[in-house]
């Protein structure tokens, strides 16, 4: 909340300064308007999803070299808060892992989706003596519903022929804060194990009473790392950073695929893209596709004032072209070229 207040104060300060500088230009969007020339200098403010934050920060610092006059800030406050702030006109664009719903505070038709990168959500585990684990969606659903409570359960053994599994108790770790990662993970279970998974899908779900919650991906990763018998869902970059063991998940084509950026990109290629460029790579088909791959988007306004439009277009174009190769450095999957072209075409719809 403090950061929220701070960002608002900063914004008011910037708006005042700009107003003073321009002698009161057009300020219809209530935000800070870029005070410079049309070549794209000024301020771009954004907030939203924490899942792609590492990637966005990298792109922002790379963009700084290309356009030193433009200051882009991205505040990882979470998708929900990001959408709220965007709807109130506090930010120029927002990052979100989930699509916009009616009660998010963003009026329909006032925004565009731009897909940016995607990331695998790993099922990370810690089980001494077991460094290779395969799970089918049904087994995974039952583990996270606390229907399977021991590692040597017949269902797990069936997915892992020949492996010797100890009778350690399973400690399930999940997010205690509302999270796009939870949303995508539970959406995957709903799609891949519809008859087994009973807890529904969303940013927060009613986990069974014996499970453990922790804040952010790093918190879940830490429980898994600390606890023998622990299992949790963690985004790929944090799981790799924490050096966790990653389970291979059985995909729609019946193949066990370990999480990787290549697996995520092939899941994107297999996903059906809607007209508004939202798409669902979860449980996508394709032999190499890693099935728990999460999309993330930027929300842009359909209408900016002229300076701002130029700045937003220039930055997002950079992110979608030169910025894409940066993704794999921070363990995110770049867009396949088809989707990338469609995303770039969104920018032409920006009116000014």
């Amino acid at each position, binding site marked *: 909340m403090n950061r929220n207040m701070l960002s608002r104060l900063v914004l008011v300060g910037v708006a005042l300064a700009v107003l003073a500088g321009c002698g009161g230009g057009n300020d219809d969007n209530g935000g800070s308007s870029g005070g410079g020339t049309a070549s794209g200098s000024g301020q771009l403010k954004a907030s939203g999803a924490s899942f792609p934050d590492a990637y966005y920060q990298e792109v922002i610092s790379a963009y700084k070299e290309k356009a030193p006059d433009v200051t882009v800030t991205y505040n990882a406050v979470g998708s929900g808060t990001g959408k709220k702030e965007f709807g109130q006109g506090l930010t120029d664009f927002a990052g979100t892992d989930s699509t916009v719903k009616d009660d998010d505070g963003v009026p329909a038709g006032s925004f565009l989706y731009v897909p940016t990168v995607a990331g695998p959500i790993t099922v990370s585990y810690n089980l001494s003596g077991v460094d290779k684990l395969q799970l089918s969606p049904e087994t995974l659903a039952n583990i996270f519903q606390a229907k399977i409570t021991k590692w040597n359960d017949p269902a797990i053994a069936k997915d892992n022929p020949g492996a010797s599994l100890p009778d350690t108790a399973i400690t399930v770790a999940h997010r205690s804060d509302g999270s796009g990662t939870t949303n995508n993970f539970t959406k995957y279970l709903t799609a891949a194990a519809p008859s087994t998974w009973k807890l529904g899908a969303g940013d927060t779900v009613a986990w069974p009473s014996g499970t453990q919650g922790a*804040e952010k991906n790093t918190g879940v990763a830490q429980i898994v790392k600390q*606890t023998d018998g*622990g299992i949790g869902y963690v985004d790929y970059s944090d799981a790799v950073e924490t050096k966790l063991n990653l389970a291979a998940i059985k995909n729609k084509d019946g193949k066990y695929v370990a999480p990787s950026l290549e697996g995520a990109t092939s899941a994107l290629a297999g996903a059906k893209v809607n007209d508004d460029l939202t798409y669902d790579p979860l449980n996508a088909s394709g032999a190499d596709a890693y099935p728990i791959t999460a999309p993330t988007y930027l929300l842009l306004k359909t209408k900016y004032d002229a300076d701002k439009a130029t700045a937003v277009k220039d930055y997002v174009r950079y992110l979608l072209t030169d910025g894409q190769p940066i993704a794999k450095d921070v363990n995110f999957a770049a867009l396949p070229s088809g989707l990338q072209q469609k995303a770039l075409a969104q920018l032409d719809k920006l009116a000014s």
Partner: protein
Amino acid sequence: MTQEEPTRSDLTGKGGGVRIERLFSWWTLATGLLVLAILALILTTTTKQAWPAFQDMGLSFITSSTWDPNPASGNPVFGSLAFIYGTVVSSLIALLIGVPISIGIALFLTELAPRRLRGSAVMVVDMLAAIPSVVFGLWGVLVLAPLLVHVYQGIHDVFASVPVLNSIFGEPVGTGRSFMTAGVILAIMIIPIVTSISREVLSTVPQANKDAAFALGATQWEMITGAVFPHSFGGLVGAVMLGLGRAMGETIAVSLVIGGATNITPNVFAGGNSMAAVIVQQFGESTGTFTAALIGLGVVLFGLTVVINLAARLVVRRAEARVQGAAR
């Protein structure tokens, strides 16, 4: 609490005349009313914002233990019983551990400690209060919880065949993040405040009372139970209540160590969640009725604190009546 009668010399100061006196009384009245106004405003605005959730859930907001903002089918369900339970249990554990330690420290400092030691000992205890709660939380998560798992396992094994106790000391959760760990951390956090107020209260016991007890042949312990405790009972309850308030409202440290599970179980070694922790965990990504329900948790927490404080006041009044009755 017993109030000293003001003496004549307190009332006749150097004084600045009638105007100052009037200004002073207005000022104190205003500040006194301000507290009430702030309380009332907080209560009305939070209740108003929480209204959609109260309306949807009715009484089951506090009687249901299902908290499901995104159910597989049907409307969201917000029942806070599990979180009320978590708040109460973790705070109770904190009191059970923290209060005897605090009163022990306070007695040691007022009755037993050599004068030279007092100053530095007081400083060390007060320094505990200066540690930010997030530091306690991180220490709990990184160091204490993994260590305590083994202790919990040991206690569980010892009581495994004792009825009642084997359900209170049940199978510990693998991470150690549980009601018990939250209680231990909270106990450490309330020790400074309970100690320092208890110390103040105990030091008001008149030396004459103590001397009288000794003169009657009381041992140190008999003097403390016979002369010190009856005199300071009300104040000690007040100290405990302040500690309880701190424990029930503590947010970030509890959020880190309590385990983040929606759970009602007699097993203190299992994970749970408290009202304050749920608010801080879930508020950021909530919308609509969900937000209202989280604010509603705040209202319930507020109400619970008021009820407990009133109950404590009642206890104090009764006990004091009894003590005074016995004395006369």
